[in-house]
């Protein structure tokens, strides 16, 4: 069970995750509550982790003992976002009208209960059925990225406002002296019908600016907008970790009470793979991070009992390095 300190922030997290997928993983652990989501093409992953301190009251009991062999798993579970969104519909008015919100799980009845205690004695109870599922986790070695930018969410919002809301993908290109966001166009774009926008910024505008390798990465803006709105609500600065094109890009925010990461696949352009043995291969490949399907309730990097490695698309070739880095990279 959990009661909220800041309902609006939680609500915004749900909205942010909703941009990625229709369902999300609800995963409470001892340290706090993790909400995770991945899109259908496995090219975007979001995780928002609320530490137990975020809640007024947080109570978690382990469902399984580590020594138990049989799988007795009721959590984590999958919830359909559409059923949760109405609970947090008008985030702005939520805090005014709701005195308390509590979330409890009742594995025996296979549902999670969201209860809002509102003004004037009104109590709204939402019982949402969940599906049991394998835990979802992505591993991404952020600290190994050569390019790291840190910036206030306000700046990112001011940049993105110049793109139309229908803009699907944008390209972020960096050199040690320049940062540029521009609308992405495919090779066969009809330029006579497409308006293109480009924004150039100086590195001085960033709170932290490290460019180890000049790169231009293209990612989906639509999926990112969720995180941008969320970070504006929390006013925590956004960190951007990325590498060459083809490697994922991570947008994350972190403070004492919560951590959120949105990891997006980036486009890899065929020209860069001149030595490709398949000349007819699809022009662009989305290279993504790996998924691990673990069969234990608590996800811990110490337990390297990795089950099936879940690969839906091309994975980065340095798989081994990433596995090796599991020891020190944070579990998301």
């Amino acid at each position, binding site marked *: 069970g959990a009661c909220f300190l800041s309902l609006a922030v939680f609500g915004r997290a749900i909205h942010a995750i909703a941009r990625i997928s229709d369902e999300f993983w609800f995963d409470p652990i001892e340290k706090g509550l993790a909400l995770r989501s991945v899109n259908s093409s496995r090219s975007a992953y979001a995780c928002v982790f609320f530490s137990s301190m975020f809640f007024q009251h947080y109570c978690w009991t382990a469902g399984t003992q580590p020594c138990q062999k049989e799988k007795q798993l009721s959590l984590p579970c999958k919830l359909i976002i559409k059923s949760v969104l109405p609970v947090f519909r008008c985030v702005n008015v939520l805090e005014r009208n709701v005195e308390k919100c509590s979330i409890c799980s009742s594995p025996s009845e296979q549902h999670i209960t969201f209860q809002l205690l509102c003004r004037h004695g009104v109590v709204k109870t939402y019982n949402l059925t969940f599906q049991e599922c394998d835990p979802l986790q992505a591993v991404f070695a952020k600290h190994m990225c050569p390019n790291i930018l840190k910036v206030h969410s306000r700046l990112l919002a001011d940049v993105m406002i110049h793109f139309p809301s229908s803009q699907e993908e944008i390209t972020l290109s960096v050199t040690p002296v320049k940062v540029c966001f521009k609308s992405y166009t495919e090779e066969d774009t009809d*330029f006579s019908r497409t308006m293109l926008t*480009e924004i150039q910024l100086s590195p001085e505008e960033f709170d932290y600016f490290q460019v180890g390798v000049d790169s231009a990465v293209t990612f989906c803006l639509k999926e990112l907008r969720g995180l941008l709105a969320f970070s504006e609500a929390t006013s925590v600065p956004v960190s951007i970790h990325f590498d060459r094109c083809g490697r994922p890009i991570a947008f994350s925010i972190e403070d004492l009470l919560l951590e959120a990461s949105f990891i997006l696949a980036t486009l890899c352009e065929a020209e860069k793979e001149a030595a490709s043995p398949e000349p007819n291969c699809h022009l662009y490949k989305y290279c993504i991070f790996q998924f691990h399907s673990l069969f234990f309730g608590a996800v811990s990097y110490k337990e390297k009992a990795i089950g099936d490695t879940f690969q839906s698309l091309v994975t980065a070739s340095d798989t081994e390095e990433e596995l090796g880095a599991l020891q020190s990279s944070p579990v998301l």
Partner: protein
Amino acid sequence: MRFRAKIVDLACLNHFSRIINTIAKLAKTCILRLTVCKLYFILSDKVANGGASMWCELSQGNFFDEFQMEGVAAEHNEIYLEFVPENLWRAFKTAQSAKAVKIKLTNKHCPCLRVAVELPSLSSSSRIVTHDIPVGVIPRRMWNDFREPSVPDFDVSIYLPVLKTMKSVVERMKNLSNFIVIEANLSGEMNLKIETDLVSVTTHFKDLGNPPWASEDGYQSSAQGRDVESMAEACIDIKKLQQLLAGQQVNPTKALCSKFNSSACELQLVGSFAILSFSRISVFIFVCLKVNIFTAPEDFQYLYF
């Protein structure tokens, strides 16, 4: 063909943006005509059953700090471009705090208007936002399609009531009928009427005043000698009128309505920045909106009457 211009003054930028916004609300595509001293936004209406036909003329000196243009040829020193006004509005919408906005005609992948906005930033160097808006170059043989519309004689010319009031009256009448009748006389009285089988509603406006048209080029001939009490009327598609009034982003100080001899009605809004004129092609069926926007009252030189 070359074109380069720059706006640095915030008030000019604001007004220019609002004009673009008005145009973007009226039309999906639009013609931009550039001459040495002026810009024109033209919409030549080819829609059979009425729509906005627009002619908007701006004196470049009232907006731009720099303005250089070289036309298609020395003896035809003009440029005609077709573009989507919504795109231009998008570029200007987020430029309201700009240090400078530059516009240039370029041809990288295709002809474009490149709008470069220099925005203030937290650091010593500015943020630069560049928008490439695709345009179509109109060949000279088609320039005749976009000539200045000729303005027929009118019967009555009157100042309109406060636009906001007129807008809300028309808005409500829209729910009751498809057509509205505008009546006005030379005594400063105007009526807005709708009539259906069940109900007829009339809103009366008094003491509106009639503009004193100088008799230049004899344009006012049919209005002279007219009985001041007699009403000239025109019937107009109410949706088009409402669309025109709703799209108004420029605040006129005065608005004018001029009635033509039974087959046309022209509504004109005059202000320090705008003259809007609205006319009808034929009785009951067609509606044609004519928009003339000038930058200063003296431009309102009865050119269109």
